[in-house]
């Protein structure tokens, strides 16, 4: 694989996807400290919101320690070079939430839908373009639909006004060839003014390998998070990604020593438990289940005495999609009934 001279933009998700790992409880101070350190390391784009994005704070996903406005207002003014992005899932967040985030000074918005449901994003993508935002269509659980169908959904988002399309491996299920097929098709079918991105999860330890496959297939934006701080077994660990990119001659603009320090000195101590591939997060990748389900399934195991792995496997069989956290407790109760 020769990727020498390729230029990519890294997008850190620790302060959004990582919120899942801390049940959305980052303090303002932790957020600001980590964002400033990432900025200092040369990270160009940093996502800051509740794990489930704007409007995400809820019983179903967990209440945030602070509001999205409080987090954004604290972080945005402290950035020297980095731009701040926010995530919005239609059906949960609304254009009013988007207006709030714009008011706080975000530069990028990522409108996330299940990989087959892009047409719920029309209101939000159009509004984001009116605001002049860098507008990303974020197609989640991209393993659940074939490349051609993913392309069709991406076309809708581009028609609404998105200038960048992501294939999002929310379950950490994709293997490098699956990534190549999806990213390659998106890249070949859209003009150069549409960027293509990849968001990985590390549940099968494929974060780095998949990201490299994505770059080779034409992706120019790569998500990850420092120390892999994210749902499931985490995102593509960005300090590792930067080191690999340096070895391969891929240009990221991020300082490898500094980002290693952010991972070790700031991110790791904030993790309640280390982000790693345990049997439950491995099950996510193996069964193709939304990574944010992990802690909810562990909680259901504790409350109802049904193993998290069994719950996650059943959710995979049901074809549960992102956002269906409410089904975790229901599935646990159903399994309990059957075994009674």
């Amino acid at each position, binding site marked *: 694989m020769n990727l020498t001279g390729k230029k990519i933009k890294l997008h850190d998700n620790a302060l959004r996807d990582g919120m899942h790992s801390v049940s959305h409880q980052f303090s303002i101070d932790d957020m600001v400290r980590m964002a400033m350190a990432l900025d200092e390391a040369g990270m160009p784009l940093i996502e800051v919101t509740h794990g489930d994005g704007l409007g995400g704070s809820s019983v179903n996903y967990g209440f945030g320690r602070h509001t999205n406005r409080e987090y954004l207002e604290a972080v945005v003014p402290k950035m020297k070079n980095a731009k701040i992005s926010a995530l919005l899932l*239609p059906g949960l967040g609304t254009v009013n939430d988007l207006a709030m985030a714009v008011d706080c000074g975000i530069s990028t918005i990522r409108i996330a839908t299940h990989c087959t449901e892009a047409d719920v994003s029309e209101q939000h993508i159009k509004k984001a373009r009116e605001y002049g935002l860098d507008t990303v269509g974020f197609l989640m659980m991209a393993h659940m639909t074939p490349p051609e169908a993913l392309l069709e959904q991406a076309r809708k988002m581009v028609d609404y006004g998105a200038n960048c399309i992501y294939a999002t491996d929310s379950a950490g299920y994709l293997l490098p060839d699956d990534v190549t097929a999806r990213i390659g098709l998106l890249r070949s079918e859209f003009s150069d003014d549409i960027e293509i991105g990849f968001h990985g999860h590390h549940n099968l330890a494929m974060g780095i390998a998949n990201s490299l496959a994505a770059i080779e297939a034409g992706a120019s934006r790569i998500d990850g998070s420092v120390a892999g701080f994210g749902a499931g077994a985490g995102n593509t660990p960005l300090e590792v990604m930067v080191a690999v990119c340096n070895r391969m001659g891929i240009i990221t603009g991020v300082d490898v020593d500094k980002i290693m320090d952010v991972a070790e000195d700031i991110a790791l101590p904030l993790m309640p438990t280390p982000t790693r591939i345990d049997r439950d997060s491995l099950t996510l990748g193996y069964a193709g289940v939304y990574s944010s389900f992990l802690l909810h399934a562990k909680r259901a195991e504790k409350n109802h005495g049904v193993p998290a792995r069994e719950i996650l496997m059943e959710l995979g069989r049901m074809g549960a999609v992102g*956002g269906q956290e*409410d*089904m975790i407790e229901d599935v646990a109760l159903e399994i309990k009934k059957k075994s009674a």
Partner: protein
Amino acid sequence: MAINCAMIGSGNIGTDLMAKLLRSANLNPVWMVGIDEDSDGLLKAREAGLKTTHEGVDGLIPHIEEDNIQIAFDATSAYVHGENNRKLQEKGVLVIDLTPAAIGPFCVPPVNLKEHVGAQEMNVNMVTCGGQATIPMVAAVSRVQAVEYGEIVATVASKSAGPGTRKNIDEFTQTTARAVEEIGGATKGKAIIILNPAEPPLMMRDTVHCLTETTPDQEAITKSVHDMLAEVNKYVPGYRLKNGPIFDGNRVSIFIEVEGLGDYLPKYAGNLDIMTAAATRTAEMFAEEIENGTLKLKKLA
């Protein structure tokens, strides 16, 4: 004598509604209004012997007097409801709004249908399918003790969510959340909708989370939930309590499944049924009032 009705919107909801109205004793569906001559809904309406137009509400207006249309159901989209409503009310037609536009007062039959009796309203709003499926349960908790926060999660099969619903997804969440407060009785409301494309399509699922102000009275809430279930079952037989109520601190969670009658879309689309059955139930109540003279329809100047 049955009251003559028109249905505006020939999509999933309008077509399912037609089947319900055809069975009603005191509602008589006469017109089906669409915008696409070849739409499945208009085709089905013609087969059923209804008059149809594909010119939108303007195609219906000239026929209102001659066909004595007194009730119209709007199942188009929040964006066009305002204009449809204005044109219909100029003709003195009572409008049942099945879009999330929510210009008129909310109606969730098992909770507040009786409040609309004698209120002389010319437009009532049916909230959303997710609202019809969940607000009765929020109310079942709040009538026992104060609910400081009510949250509902509605999951529907992708195939049962038409283009109108998809374009109006913000209106869905906002209108439902407001009705969780105003009709459900929660101090603060939130609504979430999820579309799931699984095959075969999954049945409508709804989860209701309530946070009570004080420790929940488990026995009273459980009884109230089962009583409410029986009320909803009077017009939606496939409305089932799948799990719960479960109690975790001040959280009360209720897990609902809604199986439809399979009138238009197959039985998985309980979201259509609960909406159209609620609208039919509401219109039947108004029809009784029109017939016995307690509701006099008036033209909006």
